[in-house]
């Protein structure tokens, strides 16, 4: 009887150890890789890069609606731009800094000029 108990105990121990090892392997050695993601699923460092590029592209084409739509992929455009310095691990170039300030200004002025309540 004691022998069978030992066998069942070893079976349970194997299950638990296997579960633990499998979980660690699945999390750290072969983690889930997301594919076909949107910019909102990027690492914050890459999101910061994306925001800088959107601002620089706005300097180039002056298309505020397009810049707003591109930033909306990450959330509220104004909040995204305001939060950028905290998220960017790499130093922001002077051109990008000025482009971000320019775009932020344009977004703020366009949002204040819009009538409250939205379209009828």
């Amino acid at each position, binding site marked *: 009887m004691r*022998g069978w108990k*030992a*066998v*069942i*105990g*070893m*079976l*349970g*121990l*194997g*299950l*638990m*150890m*296997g*579960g*633990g*090892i*499998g*979980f*660690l*392997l*699945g*999390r750290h050695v*072969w*983690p*889930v*890789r*997301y*594919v*076909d*993601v*949107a*910019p909102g*699923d*990027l*690492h*914050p460092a*890459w999101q910061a*890069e*994306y925001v*800088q*590029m*959107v601002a*620089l*592209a706005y*300097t*180039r*084409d002056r*298309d505020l609606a*397009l810049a707003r*739509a*591109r930033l909306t*992929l990450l959330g509220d455009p104004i909040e995204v731009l305001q939060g950028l310095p905290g998220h960017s691990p790499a130093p922001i*170039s002077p*051109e*990008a800094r000025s*482009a971000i300030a320019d775009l932020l200004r344009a977004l703020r002025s366009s949002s204040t000029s819009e009538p409250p309540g939205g379209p009828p």
Partner: protein
Amino acid sequence: MKGYAGIAFLVGLIPGLLGGLYLAWEIFPPPPGKSSPAELAAPYQELWIVLAAQADAVERDPVTLRRRLAALVLPDLPERIAALAERGLLENWPSGIVQDLARAAQQLGARSPALVVILATPVPTRVPPSPTLIPTLTPSPTVTPTFSPSPAPSPTQESPLTPTSALVETMTPTPTPSVPQVIEQWPLCETSPLLRIEVLGPDGKGRSGVRLWVSGPRGMETLLTGLKPGMGRGYADVRMEPQGAYRLGIEGSEPVLAEVSARPCKLSEDQIGWTGWEIRVRLSR
């Protein structure tokens, strides 16, 4: 009994491992938000390329451009950017964006006649209608690739260039100097009709980099001469829809240069074709 205990341990270990992997991958996967640009859906990767090229046009920092684009981990990156520039040209994207893409492709080492022509073309002051350079779909991240973006419309300039043609008639209008003018145009009976345009300079030599507009059943299309160097420096063509009526002009000069249509014609005794056209235009300067 010791042997049985060892076997029981192994019997428990294997399903435990599988269960642990299942828990880590399916039940408690790590939250998304740590992806790199390489994992972006294809339309967003194109957006990333466009943005990187536009940003570089302001920053002029090749190291930053390379870092941003290298993050996509695309094996044929320069060629892909060049192809995107050519697609932008055919789909009438703003010239500034097309030129930024062409410049970025060239910086990364891409070489093609189309890039040379795009970069040599002055940016017009009139801004053509802006395309939606932002993908409208928002795919949810998946472990296995299930996302399939809608296919881009195929360029219309890739029709076969060796149709079975039969010369039908020739027409030579009276030339008037000072404005671009059609010096010759003639129809060709062929199975898949093409509108072929050859633009000549005042010296009679083919002129590359001339932007033409063609309005037809598919709407307004922009052509650029010289993208098919084998056909001559001033050559451009566009596929014609059977029964379609087309108007041709040079961008920046208002008057319509020619109006033609693809009508049924007799290709051989038992085969009906459509009239394609060949039009030769001479520039005044």
